[in-house]
């Protein structure tokens, strides 16, 4: 993968929503080209980390920077694939994908060419005149993937992008994501609650504690070779070892979060 610099850096970052402290004192950096998985219990603020890097939510304290520049306002270097459907429902598949290049100053002809190329790469050839409501969930995710990748941005943020898919479609999409990522060499921040998915895809896993005041609980290297097959990776030596280490820590956090919820419910 490209470079050797730091793509994403968070220094002592805190984030509050009103009086609710979502994140506190988060520090980590991601080298260029790394595939980083962010895991943690539900509601721990994983998505908030992506919003910080995307520039959609300003940090309440600390510093967020990408490519050495501090993030202020929408981050023009980051592509963001959302958990929920975020395709523009009133635009056709083609119009959805060419929107990015068009907004970034490409001519319509250029943008159309790029969009068709990427629709082909994600296996949506010949579907360009459909509207999102005419597609299946998996097809919509493919279009969303083309839509965020077509801009060829150095940072790719993904928030549980495949969580709504069935297991087979999901494995297929994960594999395609890995292929495209290796081709692009982008730095990926991939949020998921699925530990297996996190390890199978990534070079490194960061574990968050349960919120509020979520912090980093652990940071694990994933020593699996590349290129990788996401299904086979689950049976490789080393997979289980990482899995057990992360799970041991994650379990504590899940239990802690569960206990907190119960005590809140009891009040």
């Amino acid at each position, binding site marked *: 993968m490209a470079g050797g610099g730091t793509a994403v850096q968070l220094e002592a970052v805190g984030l509050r929503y009103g009086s609710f402290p979502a994140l506190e004192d988060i520090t980590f950096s991601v080298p260029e080209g790394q595939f980083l998985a962010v895991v943690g219990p539900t509601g721990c603020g994983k998505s908030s980390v992506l919003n910080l890097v*995307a520039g*959609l939510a300003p940090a309440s304290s600390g510093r967020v920077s990408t490519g050495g520049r501090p993030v202020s306002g*929408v*981050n*023009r270097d*980051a*592509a*963001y694939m*959302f958990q*929920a*459907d*975020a*395709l*523009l*429902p*009133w*635009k*056709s598949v083609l119009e959805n994908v060419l*929107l*990015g290049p068009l*907004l*970034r100053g490409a001519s319509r002809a250029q943008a159309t060419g790029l969009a068709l190329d990427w629709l082909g790469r994600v296996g949506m050839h010949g579907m360009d005149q459909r*509207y*999102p*409501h*005419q597609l299946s969930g998996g097809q919509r995710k493919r279009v969303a993937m083309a*839509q*965020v990748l077509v*801009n060829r941005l150095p940072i790719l943020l993904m928030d549980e992008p495949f969580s709504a898919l069935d297991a087979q479609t999901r494995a297929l999409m994960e594999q395609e994501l890995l292929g495209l990522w290796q081709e692009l060499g982008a730095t990926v921040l991939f949020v998921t609650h699925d530990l297996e998915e996190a390890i199978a895809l990534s070079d490194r896993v960061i574990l968050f504690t349960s919120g509020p005041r979520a912090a980093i609980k652990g940071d694990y290297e994933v020593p699996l070779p590349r290129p990788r097959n996401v299904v086979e990776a689950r049976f490789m030596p080393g997979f289980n070892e990482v899995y057990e280490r992360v799970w041991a820590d994650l379990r504590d956090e899940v239990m802690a979060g569960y206990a907190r919820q119960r005590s809140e419910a009891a009040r």
Partner: protein
Amino acid sequence: MSGRGRLRLPVLGVQIGILVVVIGFWELGRRVTVGEDRFLVDPFFWSRPSRILARDLQWLQDGTIARNAGVTLYEAAAAFVLGVAAGVVVGFLLGRSDFWARVFSPYIQVANALPRLIFAPILILIFGLDERSKIALGFSLVFFIVFFNAFQGVRDVDRNVLNNARMLGAGEGQLTRHVLLPSAMSWILTSLHTSVGFAMVGAVVGEFIGASRGLGYVIARADGNLDATGVWAGMAVLCVVVVVVELAITRIESRLVRWKPQPAGELLAA
């Protein structure tokens, strides 16, 4: 879809049946007397379908319909266009600004709660007996409907879609064009159906109160002469005009919102 196709013939059959029964009752009801000397359906008030039809045909021939429906349509169309344009623009501006939305909120609520038909006489005083007073009345009705829908449409934008467009590189102006306008469009289009109706109401009521031309004037004149047939004949013309205009709007709507899934139960629209 298949269910609707299967039901189509029975539904049409019953619809025609209801029409035949109502018209038949209306036509023949005067032959049935109740009590001493009262008709079941008194033709003095209700006239008769055959006479109404004859009157309409006569009006069609002597140009009464063409002359007056044209005026009413012109007034309604002008009120509609102006009201929609103003409603969309103001709805958008307030929808985008929390501050101004709060400032104007009580005034808009009060203005909307007023029965604006009350203003018809004043509008006729201000603008005169000609078309302008009817356009003003229709405008005051249409504006609020479209305004509320445009406002809600802008407020209702999916945050994910909005953020997605931002991340793809959209600035404020581009967000309006690619996200806010199309999102609000379905709300605005829904309001157009209601608005067309109200534009007609504005025109006809305005004419009814004071005019020398238009369908409302025709009805008011017949009413003044205790001519029930004329009143009903005027209403029949009005019905036909409104149905035709509604169909046109539906056509435009289906072209503009091709992206939307067909709602499962569009029972009343078909």
